[in-house]
């Protein structure tokens, strides 16, 4: 979608044009759903988070000022929704101190590399997964993560390092084109 096209669709969405809303949804829903799945690892929860994300996107699209990419803006909303859901379920704080050995991994050999990567992130314990997603994929710093999750910076760092060690092992075993 070109920037001009995007701007036109956004303006139509502000005017509550259902066709434009559907167009926007079809362009970005897959990407946002993947984000939700990466954080929640539960189809129904991810669908609920995605649904809430789109409601917020359509309700607040008039506030989008084109200062950042639309995709970034919508991803931020989706991440916030996922974190809210984790907080609501209280799973994040319960599993922050979860031992790696207790984590239930279902690792299968996937032909599709990206799907495999998504899968191994989803199978991480929720604490590791959240911190890794926020730091490595979304690009937040430890200070921001600590504030967002209500944890200390050192906890954020330790969660990230443990997540990395698991992921590295899995990637080295199964992904051929990974440079060690």
């Amino acid at each position: 979608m070109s920037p001009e096209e995007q701007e036109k669709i956004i303006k139509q969405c502000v005017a509550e044009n259902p066709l434009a809303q559907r167009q926007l949804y079809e362009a970005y829903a897959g990407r946002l759903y993947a984000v939700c799945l990466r954080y929640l690892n539960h189809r129904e929860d991810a669908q609920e988070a995605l649904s809430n994300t789109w409601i917020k996107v359509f309700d607040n699209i008039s506030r989008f000022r084109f200062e950042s990419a639309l995709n970034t803006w919508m991803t931020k909303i989706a991440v916030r929704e996922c974190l809210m859901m984790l907080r609501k379920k209280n799973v994040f704080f319960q599993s922050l101190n979860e031992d790696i050995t207790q984590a239930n991994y279902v690792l299968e050999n996937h032909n599709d590399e990206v799907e495999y990567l998504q899968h191994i992130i989803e199978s991480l314990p929720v604490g590791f997964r959240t911190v890794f997603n926020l730091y490595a994929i979304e690009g937040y710093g430890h200070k921001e993560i600590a504030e967002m999750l209500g944890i200390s910076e050192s906890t954020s760092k330790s969660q990230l390092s443990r997540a990395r060690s698991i992921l590295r092992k899995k990637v080295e075993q199964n992904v051929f084109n990974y440079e060690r």
Partner: protein
Amino acid sequence: MKDDRLDKFFQKRLENHEVEPPPGLFDDIQRKRKKSSRGFKPQWIAAAIAALVTLTLPFYFASDDEPEMVYTPRTIFPVIQEDEPHTPYPVPDVKVASSTKQAPQKQIQQKSVQVQNSKPDYSKDLANDLAYIDQMAKQSKREGAVLAFEADLKLYEEELLDRYLTSLEIEVIAEGLNLKSENMALEESKNSIGPLVRKFFHPDYYITVESVQLPSIPLPGIGEKKEKQQTNTDSPEKD
């Protein structure tokens, strides 16, 4: 460096990764949005409350100027039976004034009775009441009843309770006197004003109305005990 490379590896591959959402989700989202927009929004609720308050305030203040209660005078007398078991507070059962018509009336010299309002003249009712009280006092063979009655009258005469009595309803006073005289007799508080005063101020007995100037009533046989009564005014209770 190793860590950064791992992060970038994941970031590069996952930032544009897509998973197809379930079909029908868009319609679901639109339905939810329509539903929430139809519901009451907080700002609408706040506006409705503000409008309601604005509309009702003038009525609220306007009603302050008017009397709170429309008083309809009535005459109520308790039915006093000599052998009836004593019922202390609250006020015992009363019957509406039909009995007062049958009550024997007696000519009583009244000094002055002034009801300072525009309501109907109660002097006739007052005469009836006083006659009834007088009769009750006389009929009672118990000394305590007479003493209580005398004590009430004494309080009137001396204007000890002026600021309270000015707002008393004449009928209620009459009723109260009867009740008190009976209660006093039954409690055997023969020479004590204390309990009487307490009952006198009991809110169950009174209704606030216009000021009333009470008559002083000469009662036969009471004068002799008056002196005794005065000495006991300050003592609370005495058996």
